[in-house]
């Protein structure tokens, strides 16, 4: 079970809601993924615009909403966005993103920690989108974050885990923190790899929404996350430099027979 903010979840797959070809596809992907946590955002509402279909769609979903501060460039922007999200979505959960570079969409870790500190003090359940930098992660934990969401690779690149060594170090170091890989996953095997490393969950959007068949891909990721977690819990065989025969040599026929 995954426990965040005092709530428990069977699914360890968190799903984004952006870029699906149609609302019906989004709904089917949510069902097939078996996700229980979905990300949403806040954007400007134009003059006299009617409540969107998306708002209506959200009302009927049995999912925990995780609003994001996507696109925020400063701690203050992120803090204000989080406060607006709390009122609008009636949740104190926030996926905290403060972006530092337009090309890589890499977090501005300095502003991220500033915003996290303020929001934790304001009783938010903060899920910070960060890098695999150990020192940054420690700073986020020190200011009260009980969840860390390091990237696998830049958002939307589908490149998988670019630095599994550093990510494995986070698993070793932050044993009391929920660790979720967020961003950059592309294949179900990437999600399985993250779970095999010991991560508590994965969050992805483009890998499902951008697939040829998002609904089937959602199912694939659900299975990959379950498989990876099961493998981790079962205890993985450690890699070896030396070959080790799996079939014993004892009583092998032709043993010690002279070669003609």
């Amino acid at each position, binding site marked *: 079970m995954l426990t965040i903010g005092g709530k428990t979840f069977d699914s360890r797959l968190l799903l984004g809601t952006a870029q699906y070809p149609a609302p019906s596809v989004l709904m089917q992907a949510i069902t097939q993924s078996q996700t229980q946590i979905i990300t949403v*955002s806040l954007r400007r*509402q134009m003059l*006299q615009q009617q409540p969107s279909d998306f708002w209506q769609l959200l009302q009927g979903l049995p999912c925990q909403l995780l609003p994001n501060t996507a696109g925020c460039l400063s701690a203050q922007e992120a803090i204000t966005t989080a406060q607006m999200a709390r009122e*609008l*979505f009636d949740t104190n959960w926030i996926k905290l993103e403060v972006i530092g570079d337009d090309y890589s969409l890499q977090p501005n870790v300095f502003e991220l920690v500033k915003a996290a500190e303020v929001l934790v003090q304001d009783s938010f359940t903060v899920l910070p989108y960060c890098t695999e930098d150990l020192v940054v992660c420690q700073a986020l934990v020190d200011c009260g974050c009980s969840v860390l969401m390091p990237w696998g690779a830049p958002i939307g690149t589908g490149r998988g885990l670019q630095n599994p060594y550093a990510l494995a170090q986070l698993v070793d170091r932050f044993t009391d923190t929920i660790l979720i890989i967020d961003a950059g996953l592309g294949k179900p095997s990437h999600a399985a790899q993250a779970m095999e490393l010991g991560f508590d969950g994965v969050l992805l959007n483009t890998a499902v929404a951008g697939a040829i068949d998002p609904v089937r891909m959602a199912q694939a990721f659900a299975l990959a996350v379950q498989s990876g977690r099961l493998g981790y819990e079962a205890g993985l065989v450690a890699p070896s430099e030396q070959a080790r025969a799996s079939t014993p040599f004892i009583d092998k026929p032709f043993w010690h027979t002279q070669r003609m």
Partner: protein
Amino acid sequence: MITMYLNGKMITTHSTTLAALVKQLGYRQATFAAAVNEQFIPREHYTQTPIKDQDRVEIVTAMQGG
């Protein structure tokens, strides 16, 4: 009449409070949230939040996101 910015666009209005502005612009249902000059304004404070010349108001609603 004042000049202010709504969602980044310059507009003119006679409204002097956020509540009046929201009503004037036709936002009727509680499907949005607001900020004035980069500060979040809780819904219950709209009537006592003044809108002044050159103020920047953001009105946001739910949207898909990753």
